């Protein structure tokens, strides 16, 4: 949930998809389920073998979250794809997937309006909290945890940071990103590249 970019009406739908896709991969990396491997033709994603469990596929062992499990199952099944391909693939459905997960967790409720259905936060304070927390931390120059640093990096990579952050301190941002594991830094760079490609694309 922490990675849900306030998106929806504030960020262009394809870019929201890329941001959320990156967030899903970021969750798996933070949980040590997947890692990056440099390969000819582009960086690949690789599942991390869990020493404790012998049975493969990782079903049941990848945490309780069904969405994370599905994403992981895809990566286990087709490890030959580049990060770029994964972002494009996950971006197609990320918004709907994350919305249903948040609905299932009781964070969002579906809302049927005249202009089609939307999702509204159950508790607006709770929904505003992650970005609010980031803003306070940025202002006070407080060190952030890894999850929040990834969130900050994603807000920046998708360009939405300019809308939701009160102040944009490049030194602080660079410091926050540099403190991350290399694979998470690579994920942020890949996200920025995917966003750039989406902007340049003519479709």
């Amino acid at each position, binding site marked *: 949930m922490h990675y849900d970019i306030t998106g929806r009406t504030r960020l262009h739908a394809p870019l929201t998809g890329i941001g959320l896709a990156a967030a899903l991969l970021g969750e798996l990396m933070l949980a040590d389920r997947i890692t990056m491997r440099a390969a000819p033709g582009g960086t690949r994603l690789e599942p991390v073998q869990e020493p404790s469990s012998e049975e493969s596929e990782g079903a049941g062992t990848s945490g309780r979250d069904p969405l994370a499990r599905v994403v992981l199952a895809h990566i286990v099944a*087709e490890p030959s794809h580049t990060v770029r391909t994964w972002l494009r693939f996950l971006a197609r459905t990320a918004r709907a997937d994350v919305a249903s997960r948040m609905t299932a967790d009781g964070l969002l409720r579906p809302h049927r309006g005249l202009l089609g259905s939307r999702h509204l936060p159950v508790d607006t304070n709770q929904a505003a909290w992650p970005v609010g927390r980031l803003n306070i931390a940025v202002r006070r120059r407080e060190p952030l945890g890894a999850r929040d640093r990834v969130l900050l990096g994603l807000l920046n990579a998708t360009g939405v940071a300019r809308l939701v952050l009160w102040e944009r301190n490049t030194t602080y941002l660079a410091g926050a990103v540099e403190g991350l594991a290399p694979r998470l830094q690579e994920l942020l760079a890949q996200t920025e590249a995917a966003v750039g490609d989406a902007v*340049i694309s003519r479709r």
Partner: protein
Amino acid sequence: MSLTEQRTGAVTAALAEDRLGVPSVVFFVISAAAPLTVVAGVVSTAYAVTGVVGVPLAFVLLGAILAVFAVGYVTMARHVVNAGAFYAYTARGLGRPAGVATAWVALLAYNAVQVGLYGVIASAATPLLTDWFGVTPDWWAVALAAWLLTGALGLMRVDVNGKVLAVLLLAEIAVVVVFDLAGLAHPAASGYSPEAFAPSSLLVPGMGAVIAVCVAAFAGFESSVVFSEETKDPRRTVPIATYIALAVISGLYAISSWTVTVAVGSDKVVEASRAQGPGLIFELAGRHLGTTAATVGSVLFVTSILAAMIAFHNTISRYIFALGRERVLPSIFGRTSPPTGAPVSGSVAQSVTGLVVIVIYAVSGLDPLVHLFFTVGSFGGFGVLLLLAGTSVAVLFFFTREPGLENAWRTRIAPGLASVLLLIVLGLALVNFDTVLGVEPGSPLRWILPAVYLAAIVFGVAWGLTLRATRPRVYANIGLGAQAAIGGDK
């Protein structure tokens, strides 16, 4: 469809669903070329300003030269990832400083073609406005309205979307074909004279000028390779789409420009074009088919120009955006607008350029059709020639350095032939540059404008070398576009 409903093994299949086939790519490519804008605007102006009757032959020759050029060009697209633009090719083939120089030339040339269109929109729209509303606005008022629309759509990232574009394009082509048939059914006294295709009508002093003018009409065909990564089968889709687009464009232009000589008489075509300008083919259509047909054609002429303006505007803003992402331009140009995903700074920069040019022309009272559409448009056409020649040489160098990737025809013979032909055309255009621009032979503009490109090249190479010395990480990313964020060889 939710992710959870997909079975494993579906990644490639799912991504393949929204990939493009040959027809889509052909549509994208031809739409940037805006057929009716060329047939009504460029053809009549080319006859009028150069006084050369061989315009149809020029289109055929250019189509052939570009087809030879395309052989190496689409082959290189298979080996250079993120083949976004000409400068990605020259950066790889001729070195990164040459890439920066190409980028500057491309920005100049595309901007010139785009801004040139502001000079023709009034002559397309004013007759309609007068007919319908009885108003006759100044040309710059019409240009500013078009400018506002283009700028606003650019900021909202409204690419004239696929379906609208397809309908407009088919309507344009239908109008051109119907007008052609009507013209052929009503030949003038000189009959079906093949004179316009005779080498002797092109091998005259204004030849280089005609070619430079006509090449601007092809601008946009190079965008086919941009779709490489989004097509079903890049190895086949992109080349086939490129050749089809070239054949359709050059065939349509050659036949239409010949039809004008049939309908008016090849001896009178220059005179008639001078007298009536872009209105010529609509006047002919009105005579042959009635006023309704002429009005439909005139309306589509306006939408065609607008579509071309928007297409070039978006091409330029993406170019600027890509350079901003690479940090070759300041990073502010690499920014997007979060709500629309538009390359904002690039779009604004292009709009500012357009506004400045319109204001300068309006204030100094220059003729929009001759001095803006033709002179600036041809200046852009010359730049496109430079880009084509440079890219062709780059393809040759690239495959010389990395031999064995493809057969000799694709990597050496065709690119070599295309380079020689394009350099000859470039030389001819330079010799005739006064006619290219439609200025007096003694005019200093004749030398100043080519010098502008020279300056762009020198400045580009210098900037590339500066980056190498001072910011090697930026230098390493030249030509990578958005992928600069992750570096090239990861």
